[in-house]
């Protein structure tokens, strides 16, 4: 079983799940780092449009305010929300985020209402 006839999972069995059903701890670590970057970016956007006064005040731009005050932050989220997301076809309506196409370039933080 060497060279071209080497036994690999696809040649031996045929069925191979290339994405494990759960994320590794390193995938989770990198996901948290990316989420923290998004949090920092949102903070910069908020600070740039914030009025000169003190305190947590509205910028007058609903979308930026939503990101700052409603969009969940990485350190406020439960692990189940960080690593899984809503999916209407999945069992129990939850799906691991690493099964979503382009998952490293998207945010999955807000769940549907009543979920």
């Amino acid at each position, binding site marked *: 079983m060497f060279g071209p006839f080497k036994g690999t999972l696809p040649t031996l069995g045929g069925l191979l799940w290339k994405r494990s059903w759960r994320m590794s701890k390193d995938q989770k670590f990198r996901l948290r780092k*990316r989420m923290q*970057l*998004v949090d*920092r*970016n*949102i903070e*910069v*956007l908020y*600070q*740039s*449009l*914030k*009025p*000169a006064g003190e305190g947590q005040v509205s*910028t007058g*731009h609903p*979308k*930026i305010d939503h*990101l700052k005050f409603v969009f969940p932050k990485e350190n406020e989220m439960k692990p189940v929300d960080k690593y899984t997301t809503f999916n209407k076809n999945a069992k129990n309506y939850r799906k691991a985020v690493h099964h979503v196409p*382009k998952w*490293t*370039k*998207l*945010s999955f933080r807000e769940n549907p209402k009543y979920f």
Partner: protein
Amino acid sequence: MSSAAAKQMYYKILQKRSVIGMPPTVRRNIEILGLKKRFDISYQKVSPSTAHRLAKVKELVEIELVDEPKTKEQLKEERRPNPGFVLVKANPNTQ
């Protein structure tokens, strides 16, 4: 009134992720922000329209608030590696 009214601030935008595989709206926003590929840096004036553009691409870029934009030459100078020596006295014949 925004804090930017007192002094014009700039966004320093560093593209950290490629736009490969992203939808046309995201690609277009990245292009308009002056970014072409990963690790490009672009400076844009702080404004609500730019902020909303950045909100669209917040997963792909790293944003900082700075007072002054830097020129391409300044950015290149910052990347120049340490030559490993200090020029004490220049040779007059070569000047």
